[in-house]
């Protein structure tokens, strides 16, 4: 059978975000500008980063995304995330390793509503004529400096975004416990570009992935999308294979 992750999130549950409940209301996020860079990483550098319930992607890769949300229930904010390409059972997923939001309010809400391991910091999303740049600073130190270089128009139908999985403490069956949460935004594309992924600075420890090494860039995209952060529909036991440990806690959305 495929390989499994080795991370036991129950062993260090205090560092995980905690949700007061699983009744998170959805956030509509119109006209978001989303830069996403996909980069292969050595398999050995991902040891211990992926929960036991999930399968690693082969080859291992990460997704660095910097997004400008111009409208949200907590006002405009930028968000940078690092996700590890993986499989939840048969399905491609990006396991969230770390994130930085540009406002305290966004960081607080994203942690408490979807279990995103996010802290507040400085996140810039800057568009130039020949590139889109993302920079992230925490405590005055640059922890990410990346760009999509020479973007060229493509069709939104050429771009595939995979769903996310977060690890968090949340009440389930009367007990607050570490679980995995599926976050599955919808996307309506207004504009899509593809280009070369470039990373000048990346501090893996600042993204909760101290062993991670970036290797071969695959590709980068920047898209303008209407998206959302939806209600939570599926949660997973962090220690059982996903195909055995998944629970549906809410019916699918009306538009699905």
């Amino acid at each position, binding site marked *: 059978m*495929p390989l499994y992750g080795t991370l036991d999130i129950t062993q260090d549950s205090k560092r995980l975000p905690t949700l007061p409940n699983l009744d998170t209301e959805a956030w509509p996020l119109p006209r978001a500008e989303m830069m996403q860079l996909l980069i292969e990483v050595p398999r050995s550098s991902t040891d211990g980063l992926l929960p036991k319930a999930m399968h690693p992607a082969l080859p291992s890769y990460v997704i660095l995304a910097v997004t400008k949300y111009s409208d949200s229930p907590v006002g405009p904010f930028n968000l940078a995330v690092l996700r590890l390409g993986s499989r939840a059972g048969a399905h491609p997923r990006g396991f969230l390793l770390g994130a930085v939001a540009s406002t305290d309010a966004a960081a607080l809400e994203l942690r408490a509503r979807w279990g995103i391991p996010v802290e507040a910091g400085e996140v810039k999303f800057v568009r130039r004529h020949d590139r889109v740049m993302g920079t992230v600073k925490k405590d005055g130190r640059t922890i990410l400096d990346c760009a999509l270089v020479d973007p060229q128009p493509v069709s939104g139908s050429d771009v595939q975004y995979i769903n996310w999985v977060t690890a968090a403490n949340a009440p389930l069956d009367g007990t607050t416990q570490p679980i995995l949460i599926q976050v599955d935004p919808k996307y309506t594309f207004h504009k899509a570009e*593809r280009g070369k992924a470039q990373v000048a600075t990346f501090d893996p420890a600042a993204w909760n992935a101290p062993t991670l090494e970036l290797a071969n860039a695959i590709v980068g995209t920047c898209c303008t999308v209407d998206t959302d952060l939806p209600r939570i529909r599926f949660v997973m036991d962090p220690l059982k294979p996903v195909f055995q440990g998944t629970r549906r806690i809410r019916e699918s959305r009306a538009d699905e």
Partner: protein
Amino acid sequence: MKFGLFYEISIPRPWTAEKERTVYNNCLEQVKLADALGFEHVWAVEHHFLEEYSHCSAPELFLTACAMITKNIKVGHGIVVCVPEFNHPIKIAEKTATLDILSGGRLHVGTGRSATWTELGGFGANPDTTKKSWDEFVRCLPKMWTQETFAYQGEFWSMPERTILPKPYQKPHPPMWVAVTSPGTEIDAADRGLGSLGLSFAGFDEQEKKIKEYRRRIRHCEPVGAFVNEQVATTNFLFCHEDEKTGVEMGKKLGNTFNYLATQLISTREVFSSPSYQSLGLLPALRRAATGPDASEQQTEGMAYGDPARIIRAIRKWESLGVDCVNFILNANEVVPQDQVMASLRLFAKEVMPHFAKKPHTAAAAAE
């Protein structure tokens, strides 16, 4: 209706020193039996880096071994990756001609372009251009096989005039096919006069549409080769057992395991946004089917597992849709013990094949 075997050569972890050899030997033993039983084809894929799912990176060597231990069964490259970073077209022409000679004219050549980032990225190939390079390759190969000398100036490769040797044993050249997974590739096959080597497990309705369109288009094709190879093959799982319930259970286990392994592959589209890979190929259907190795339910429409009567019904349906050949996957990760694979083949040949045979099958071999 013709029947074939289709090998991914799936090998479970841990990969001990003997395990890969054992699985390869199991496959050869199956091929030898299939030849005696009257199966028409043995196909072997070309895949690279696909852990557990397929350890068949040098299919021409496996197929040469198959040819050496068999008499009649046709050996099919299913498929040769027609992307220059994977295979130089001169080498494809030379190796396939050699295999055709060694097999006594039993070679079929499937062509394709790879669907996974795992493979394309591994060879440093650009996903945007694989369809174009495939098109160049399939137009060159017949000329390389048949012309005394050949020269070429193309977008993806070029060569000055040389004599490419040896020439295939079959005249004018071996039949050519193309792997059909993405929607629309059946049209590419038809327009070029190539056989449609279906590698998906789509249901009847979708396959029927594809086959109709293929048959319609191929009547007006401009063949890339010296002749039109109008054939439609599809892929299926085979587990034939006297008891229907036992057969279905083992067949589902085989199918679930194969599908689950397949869904672990990184489709090109998952990581590399490209108009050349708009479709996920067979993966969405597999994901719907593969809820996990212990899944109790799986799509079983048209699957060739169960008892002979059930399998005959399934194949009759495929036949009615216009399928010419069904190629069977016999195992995945060795979940079916070898003795049961062999028994399944024998029972299929004895109880199912006669219902689809134009001429008497080799009953003696089936009875062994």
